[in-house]
């Protein structure tokens, strides 16, 4: 019987060809598709680079990066530093604000909440993550920014006006838009991301690790501190970096709330700009070649920053993650 089956499978030439062909087709198809992704990323980078050629020719690559002027009206001089600064500062601060609360939420959902509650919070977190950023932005404009104006910007403005009137240009008018508003909104937007990724990392910690800690007489919190968080650290850090990448690229809500000031000096309590916000604000009015080219160059810089953040995330994941009980 077994012999018969072997004959049927192996001896019919049509089967051999068919299987050989199927294997080859599948292999080439997946190879081509895989390659497409790689080519697409390279092509994007290349297009951004070639389109920003004029800017780089005029100001030089380094000159553009460290240039602090952004004047599209009169002098046509462009520099990216204020936007790089605005992007990094808002993202880093939003990550700092969001990191610990997110981990606390993730620990609660993964370890403490009863099943029904963790299901609810799980879905809510996903829902919050799915809110379009323009919706967050409009809430920010009409609800959050006025509140910030009254409770935060206004007092600081008045205090500065009284004591250090010379600093008023940095602070800007207290309209409720500015770096602080944008940073807080960004933090709110990335909390769900860090939470979900941390929760997944925590759920991947093997049960044996928890039990080993319990068997030593650890309390629940001690188990979390001793066995769970160290084991999940790779996933947690990678999640934080990916969320950081998202904060860097976040456009709409930030453009709506940051106040859009295109030149230094910025202050944490005053209006500023980020790379995405200046691109979204100016692409319509960019008529001259050098302006378009400079926006493209900003795009390239953002592309490179995101790439670096993702590479760091990948490196951290590999460096810190734990497989089969061994530290790699």
């Amino acid at each position, binding site marked *: 019987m077994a012999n018969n089956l072997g004959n049927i499978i192996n001896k019919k030439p049509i089967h051999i060809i068919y299987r050989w062909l199927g294997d080859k087709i599948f292999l080439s198809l997946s190879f081509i598709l895989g390659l497409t992704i790689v080519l697409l990323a390279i092509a994007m980078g290349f297009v951004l680079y070639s389109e920003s050629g004029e800017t780089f020719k005029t100001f030089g690559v380094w000159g553009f990066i460290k240039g602090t002027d952004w004047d599209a009206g009169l002098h046509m001089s462009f520099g990216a530093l204020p936007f790089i600064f605005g992007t990094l500062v808002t993202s880093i601060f939003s990550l700092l604000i969001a990191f610990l609360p997110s981990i606390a939420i993730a620990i609660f959902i993964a370890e403490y909440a009863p099943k029904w509650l963790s299901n609810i919070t799980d879905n809510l977190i996903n829902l919050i993550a799915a809110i379009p950023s323009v919706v967050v932005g409009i809430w920010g404009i009409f609800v959050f920014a006025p509140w910030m104006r009254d409770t935060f910007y206004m007092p600081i403005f008045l205090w500065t006006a009284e004591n250090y009137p010379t600093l008023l240009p940095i602070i800007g008018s207290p309209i409720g838009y500015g770096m602080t508003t944008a940073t807080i909104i960004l933090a709110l937007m990335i909390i769900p991301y860090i939470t979900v990724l941390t929760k997944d990392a925590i759920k991947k910690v093997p049960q044996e690790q928890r039990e080993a800690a319990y*068997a030593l007489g650890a309390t629940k919190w001690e188990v979390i501190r001793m066995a769970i968080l160290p084991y999940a650290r790779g996933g947690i850090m990678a999640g934080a970096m990916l969320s950081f990448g998202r904060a860097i690229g976040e456009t709409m809500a930030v453009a709506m709330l940051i106040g859009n000031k295109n030149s230094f000096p910025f202050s944490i309590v005053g209006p500023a700009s980020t790379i995405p916000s200046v691109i979204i604000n100016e692409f319509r009015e960019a008529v001259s070649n050098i302006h378009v080219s400079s926006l493209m160059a900003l795009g390239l810089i953002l592309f490179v920053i995101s790439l670096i953040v993702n590479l760091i995330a990948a490196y951290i994941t590999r460096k810190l993650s734990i497989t089969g009980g061994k*530290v790699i």
Partner: protein
Amino acid sequence: MEKIPEKNKEIIIKNDSIDMANCPTCSTKVRIEAKNLTIKYGKEFGVKNVSVPIHDKNVTALIGPSGCGKTTFLRCLNRMHDLNKKVSISGQVLLDGQDIYDSKVNPVNIRRKIGMVFQKPTPFPTMSIYDNVVAGLKLVGIRNKSLLNEVCEKALTQAALFDEVKDRLKSPGGSLSGGQQQRLSIARALAIEPEVILMDEPTSSLDPKSTLKIEDLIFELKKNYSIVIVTHNLPQAARVSDCSIFMYLGELIEYGKTEKLFKNPSDKRTEEYITGKFG
């Protein structure tokens, strides 16, 4: 499973009571005593009405085919089942006469007194060998460096690992071989000086040489501790244990001196299992 004739049942019960009241080998006092212990997973029985004593300074082996409730019973002895809400437990487990399932008892204290070693080695991978050993002590707030060093050395020596790792106490626990990791887990359990050590198939993932080392270790440890060991390896049970408990389908079938249980079992099912007819 065949139904047991009523006559046999009586004999079993009789045997049990004889063994429990006056186990011929175990001159030491009773450390843990399970009384009418029943453990259910949801509606399914894991362990049915088991009553058995576990003696001090003695190795008790739990044997039986897969799924017979050995591990379930073992994990019940240090309240490991608390972690799983589906498990319900009735009956009593007395540690030195005190019911560990009493509502006033804090499971954390019980686990400190009754240590556990698992089937897979479970060193904390991000901690060094040293930190792994003293992890339990740091939990109770001991920060005294010289004391920690002393306990670390003692526990590692007891676990027959000290000579192999003394030059690299700061390297990660995960860098050791499987057998060394398991001895590290044992050292970690010993460091908090428990009174009883539960071992859940501690050698099932190890090679024969490491297994032998762990068995020697168990032999050493029983001078000071009571040990309960679950094992699938019958020769191992015969080698290391003083008393054996044979379980089948969640029930305690036979309990007694290992030598007697292996050479001259009073129950037919024990005999069949030991001679390899099932399981």
